[in-house]
């Protein structure tokens, strides 16, 4: 499920690393139309008069070929083609290579409320960028109640009941030079079926509530180096109040997994009690996670060494 409906104006205002460089030239009234299909269409055949299977509900991309073709049409021919083209409920049009549509096109687009954009990008480049942006829009989304921090380049999602100290832990991590992505509410998207990307709600971005202080702006207090807008989630840390008698992981030989949107993320539980330095445990966990990713698994390696040693000892005493 994606949470929000996606409108054409979202393409232009996309909050993404990718800049589509789209400038609106006509059809402003249609910006509120909803995008239901993430695909694109090249309208060349339609312009040439063939409208069977015309995918009017997709984003129409006018490349150099289409613009050159339209330039060769006489005004009468053009009017005829546009009448036909716009009689479909065309979603929106994009002209690439910074080619502006002519007056007649603009007039039609305005009349039929078809948002029309011009982009500086080349056609192929634009299509590939657009695919990225649109895929992100349509990617599965879930909102997690946790705090996302980039610790030594590892995206750590802190989870736990309210009051267990997620925000305080994040604050201490920030103070130690790590970066806050989002506090309390993390939007998680599954990208390309393979990775989980987390970011905060735009409106409260980089603010935190610290009990006793109230709401603070992390960016203003700690500066630009203390924040980032999005981060891939690479591990989940569940903070839990220390319960006497509960068994905690003492070896770390077996990897536990936390499932978010059907993807498994390495997962550890860290018991919290007064005086326990949680941030340094999380830093170490993040570094350990990096080691594991590089193929170094400390707990298993130590276990292997011990088993090896015991075997050798056994052989020696057999002699």
């Amino acid at each position, binding site marked *: 499920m994606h*949470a929000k409906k996606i409108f054409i104006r979202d393409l232009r205002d996309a909050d993404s690393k990718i800049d589509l460089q789209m400038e609106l030239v006509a059809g402003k009234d249609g910006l509120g139309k909803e995008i239901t299909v993430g695909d694109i269409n090249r309208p060349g055949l339609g312009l040439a008069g063939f409208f069977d299977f015309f995918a009017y509900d997709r984003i129409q991309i006018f490349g150099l070929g289409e613009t050159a073709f339209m330039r060769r049409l006489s005004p009468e021919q053009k009017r005829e083609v546009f009448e036909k083209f716009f009689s479909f409920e065309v979603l929106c049009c994009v002209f690439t290579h910074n080619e502006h549509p002519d007056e007649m096109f603009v007039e039609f687009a305005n009349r039929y409320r078809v948002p029309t954009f011009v982009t500086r990008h080349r056609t192929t480049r634009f299509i590939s960028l657009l695919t990225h942006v649109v895929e992100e829009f349509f990617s599965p989304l879930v909102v997690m109640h946790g705090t996302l921090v980039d610790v030594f380049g590892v995206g750590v999602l802190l989870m736990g009941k309210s009051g267990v100290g997620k925000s305080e832990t994040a604050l201490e991590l920030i103070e130690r030079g790590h970066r806050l992505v989002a506090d309390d*509410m993390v939007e998680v998207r599954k990208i390309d079926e393979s990775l989980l990307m987390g970011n905060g709600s735009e409106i409260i971005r980089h603010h935190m509530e610290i009990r006793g202080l109230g*709401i603070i702006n992390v960016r203003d207090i700690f500066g630009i180096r203390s924040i980032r807008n999005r981060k891939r989630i690479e591990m989940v840390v569940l903070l839990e109040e220390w319960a006497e008698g509960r068994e905690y992981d003492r070896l770390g030989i077996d990897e536990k997994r936390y499932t978010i949107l059907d993807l498994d993320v390495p997962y550890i539980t860290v018991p919290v009690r007064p005086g326990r330095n949680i941030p340094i445990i999380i830093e170490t966990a993040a570094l350990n996670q990096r080691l594991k990713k590089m193929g170094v698994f400390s707990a298993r390696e130590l276990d292997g060494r011990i088993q090896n040693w015991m075997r050798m000892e056994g052989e020696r005493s057999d002699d």
Partner: protein
Amino acid sequence: MIEREVLVRSDAGVHARPAMMFVREAMKYPCEVFLIKDNVEANGKSIMSVLGLAITSGSRLIVRARGENEESAVAKLVSLIENDFKN
């Protein structure tokens, strides 16, 4: 689990103070409390989470509670919203 839909009528929407009123009330109950707008679920016991929903006047919300005392929690929180966050 109990849930009820409610319409926000207060002109200013749910800004910092109403959010605090809501969270403060939610904290009084042992159950989990969620506030849902447009399919996005916020933790009803977290100010940042509630503010993150960007609730404007006219928004339709769902108040959901799960656990001990869930019924009275939902009743109380819905009436808080209906009464423009005046206790």
